């Protein structure tokens, strides 16, 4: 009887442990951030950037957008689970009236000029 109680207790504890572990992993995965750098050709004036920023904001999962006009770059942070594809980003840039160049995805933040 004692053994049964002991085994049941261990089983419950194990289940709780594995359940909490899997929940933690799931939370980590859903909150994970991907950093994106999009090179935008033709972005030559700050007042031109509004249309691009507006279209990028419409993407699901976008956390932050920073546009560097001098370098012609748009930096995004997005939830990894909702990360846009390279093709989606290129279409947004084209629809905003610019020419897309490179799109780089990274797990680490990019060094922004203002933050150096």
């Amino acid at each position: 009887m004692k053994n049964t109680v002991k085994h049941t207790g261990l089983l419950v504890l194990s289940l709780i442990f594995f359940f909490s572990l899997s929940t933690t992993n799931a939370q980590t995965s859903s909150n994970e951030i991907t950093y994106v750098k999009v090179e935008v050709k033709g972005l030559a004036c700050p007042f031109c950037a509004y249309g691009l920023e507006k279209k990028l904001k419409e993407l699901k999962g976008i956390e932050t957008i920073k546009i560097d006009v001098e370098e012609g770059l748009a930096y995004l942070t997005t939830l990894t689970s909702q990360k846009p594809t390279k093709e989606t980003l290129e279409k947004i840039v084209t629809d905003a009236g610019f020419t897309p160049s490179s799109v780089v995805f990274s797990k680490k933040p990019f060094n922004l000029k203002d933050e150096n």
Partner: protein
Amino acid sequence: MNRLAIITLGIFFTLNVFAQGPPITTETPIMLGLEGNGVRTFGKFISKENVTIYVQPIGIPYNITSKFQVGAIFPFKLITPKDSRTTGGFADMTVFAKYQLYKKDGKAKTFRILGLIKQTFPTGKTSSSSTIGSGLYQTYIGIVIGKLTTKIGLYTDFGYNITNKNMSDNFIYNFSVGVPLLPHKYPQKQLNTFLEFNGNYVFDPKVHTVFISPGFQFIPGRRILFETSFQIPIVQDNITTNKTNYMVLLGTRFLIN
């Protein structure tokens, strides 16, 4: 002659009403940001020898795509002849369409060419002593060219304006150089300065006017812009009476979405 001068001036300012974004009195081939869907309005005070004119146009462009824009301009005009009472009302309405013909983008620079068509309707009244409208249908066909980098903006537009009722056609041309006075950052404040030239050549009788137009533009945020320009005549060939002394423009543009 007065009527011709007023018509010419009317054509002149109407065609310059919707210079999109920077520059101020010249068209731009860049239909992005503040030059896209929005509203532009400004007050323009015109001082002439025998009359003062105040014009308050409202222009509304709409981007159908990033390459194709349509819009309309509704000007309100007040005319005060010397020793006479002020007459006011809505002047001639203009609709326009712009289509991007060429685009070459590079890192922090762009070169674009647009085709521009405008149609002006004689909606302004012409019955009063100081005519508010031209009484003419006018069709303008032109080209807009611009090169923009983060250091400088060069713009030009030119085109032929066809009028009805045996009135003379005219050729309109504008040129602009714009230089940012603050580093180009987004969405920080921007201050731009412009030097522009605005020309108009009427074929019959031959009347040629050119204005030099220095101006400033302040962009405090993402969606609004303020601008001012002072236009001084440097050529007024074959205008013997009622020459233009100067013109002052003070305006704003803002995005509605």
